[in-house]
């Protein structure tokens, strides 16, 4: 985009390794000052953030698509573990499962009929489409509502939803990616090809809607009641099982370590290794794609759509492709996050945290550069977590000279919100003084 400026970044070939070393040093300092447990927690979410940033970078850095609905695709990815790895609720499917499937089939047929009418009818088109849509909607609701009521009536305190398939959690990650990709196809099919600002507003809407669906459709994911106890993915064990495992206790005792702390650190290390493996595979695939003719074509389209179109490239088609792929990566990370947390809390999906913070990661890291996104993801996540601690500390220093009173109390209490201001300032400073980010695109 036009933020691109000529001239190479300082540091040349050593720039990326040096910056990554600095990031590692920051994390090591964190580990030695506040403990390995906290530091590894930051690393794990940092790795997930890096994958999220990779997904957004594909859309923005490769293709210049402004997706402001990231939060929705993360949430949809998180539905993967719920649908795949939770135990099915006994009797729920026979009570209302078929009704819901039938209702969805009716919805699909209705939409298909409306599209067909739109293409083939000449006179009275608007009226006919409206009539079909309204009839379809009422039929859908007539079948859907009783099915939902039947499902939600089953043991509402602890279940009240369909439940999952009871399959391994690892399998749910690609399912999360598929769910996000499916939604992206629907959105992209309608909204791509519009101007960039319109796409931004349209995706903002779809993000809100997906989160609203997850909050309210209790038959699907219990809504605001949350799904808890989502099983961990292979090969990560539970801390209590580790602490009861004689082999583990023996090894811990041999090193003279505390079994409780060691078990939590072991779990986090295993998750970290798993996430890092996923990240590396993704980066490898993305670097291959970016350096292939396909990657060159994507950059050509991004830099000059008109010229690329004149060369016979299908711009809208390529945009749709990259939009779906990017959303799939975002969904994958969303699913990983849910299996790390072990619970699905739809009300926690806040667009500032899950859309715009990811954007800060991509811009700070360097849009168009995959390693930049990884660095940005880790760094900004680190700053975001630490800012919650730094805010009050800074505020205490600032207000040290103030007399104790309601004003001082108010300022100290609201200090955690300073991290939003901090993120905004970081984004503005990077856009102004270093628009190509920490690791610029080559």
């Amino acid at each position, binding site marked *: 985009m036009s933020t691109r400026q000529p001239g190479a970044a300082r540091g040349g070939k050593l720039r990326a390794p040096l910056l990554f070393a600095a990031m590692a040093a920051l994390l090591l300092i964190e580990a030695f000052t506040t403990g390995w447990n906290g530091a590894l927690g930051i690393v794990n979410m940092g790795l997930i953030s890096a994958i999220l940033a990779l997904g957004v970078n594909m859309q923005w850095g490769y293709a210049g698509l402004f997706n402001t609905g990231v939060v929705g695709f993360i949430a949809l990815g998180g539905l993967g573990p719920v649908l795949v790895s939770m135990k099915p609720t006994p009797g729920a499917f026979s009570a209302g499962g078929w009704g819901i499937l039938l209702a969805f089939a009716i919805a699909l047929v209705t939409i298909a009929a409306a599209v067909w009418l739109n293409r083939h009818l000449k006179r009275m088109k608007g009226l006919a489409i409206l009539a079909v849509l309204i009839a379809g909607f009422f039929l859908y609701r007539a079948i859907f509502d009783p099915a939902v009521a039947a499902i939600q009536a089953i043991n509402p305190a602890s279940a009240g939803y369909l439940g999952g398939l009871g399959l391994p959690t690892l399998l749910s990650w690609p399912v999360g990616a598929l769910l996000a990709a499916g939604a992206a196809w629907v959105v992209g099919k309608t909204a791509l090809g519009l101007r960039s*600002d319109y796409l*931004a507003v349209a995706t903002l809407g779809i993000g809100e809607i997906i989160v609203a669906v997850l909050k309210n459709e209790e038959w699907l994911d219990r809504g605001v009641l949350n799904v808890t106890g989502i099983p961990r993915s292979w090969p990560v064990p539970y801390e209590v099982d580790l602490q009861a495992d004689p082999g583990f206790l023996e090894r811990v005792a041999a090193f003279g370590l505390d079994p409780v702390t060691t078990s939590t650190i072991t779990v986090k290390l295993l998750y970290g290794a798993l996430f890092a493996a996923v990240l590396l595979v993704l980066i490898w695939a993305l670097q291959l794609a970016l350096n292939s003719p396909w990657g060159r074509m994507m950059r050509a389209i991004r830099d000059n759509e008109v010229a690329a179109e004149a060369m016979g490239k299908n711009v809208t088609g390529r945009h749709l492709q990259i939009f779906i792929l990017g959303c799939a990566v975002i969904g994958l990370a969303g699913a990983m996050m849910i299996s790390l947390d072990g619970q699905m809390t739809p009300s926690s999906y806040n667009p500032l945290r899950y859309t715009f913070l990811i954007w800060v990661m991509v811009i700070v890291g360097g849009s168009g550069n995959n390693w930049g996104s990884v660095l940005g993801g880790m760094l900004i996540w680190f700053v975001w977590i630490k800012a919650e601690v730094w805010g009050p500390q800074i505020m205490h220093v600032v207000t040290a000279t103030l007399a104790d009173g309601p004003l001082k109390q108010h300022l100290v209490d609201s200090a955690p919100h300073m991290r939003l201001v901090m993120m905004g300032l970081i984004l*503005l400073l990077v856009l102004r003084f270093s628009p190509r980010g920490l690791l610029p695109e080559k």
Partner: protein
Amino acid sequence: MDILNALVAILNYVVVPATAYGAQLALGALGVTLIYGILRFSNFAHGDTMAFGTAITILVTWALQAAGLSFGPLPTALVALPFGIAATALLVLGTDRIVYAYYRKVRAAPVVLTMVSVGVMFVMNGLTRVLIGVDEIKFTDGARFLISAQEFKKATGLAEPLAIRTTQAITVITAAIVVAALFWFLAKTRAGKSMRAFSDNEDLALLSGINPNRVVAMTWIIAAALATIAGTLYGLDKSFKAFNYFQLLLPVFAAAIVGGLGNPLGAIAGGFIIAYSEVAVTYAWKKVAIYLIPGYQSDNLLQLLSTEYKFAVSFTILIIVLLFKPTGLFKGKSV
């Protein structure tokens, strides 16, 4: 009688709230559309500008109330409104000087400016939270009702009540005054004409000797005033909560785009279209059906969508308009 009752029910539950909401959206969309028309980018910070202006207005309102001042039957917030507008105008002018001016100078692409506005959004969001916190705040005072439900029932003898809250009436009247003033300003004054000229053709306007800095500054001041008024009216009508204002971004943008971005008249029409659709789709029509259809009995609420899905309404209208009429219902710009 039943038909009258049905009509009153529709008035009470659909027309009155939707008109107030539509006026608030229209004012918000006017700000978005002005910035788009003259500064040529989608300002994602507009929701948080509304929140900031409202927060200042609330703080001044509290100060006035603490000093024992009030505005009779009208809410004290109306007295505090000019202070809120002034503070917000200063904030956005400062933001323009420090942040946006540079990108105009280097003639950055609109999408870069939109990205920059995301940074501004974060800062303003944080500032508002530090200023006033994240809790829900009700700050309306004065008389609660213009027409209360009991009075209306007694006066007309109908079974259905019609209540018009003072805040709803104030919203519509204020919005009408503001819109009239804005259109008079744009159509009749020299400054307003220079703004329209700048919006139509920047280069030609510059050649005619129009000072771009003045046009930009005026645009920001007007946008700040519109945002603060819209935010305060929304807060008086419902309540103030920082996050809700951020979420208003979607219906406000939908209103501006549906009407045609850059077209002030379109923004107003868009605001009312979005508001009426949202309220009509999320209203439970059962009561009206019972009045209108003799012998109608059903457990069905006749509610098309639950209120949680009101965003889906703005979104659907937005998509339909964009698919079939990409420049909006009234002719907008396409940059």
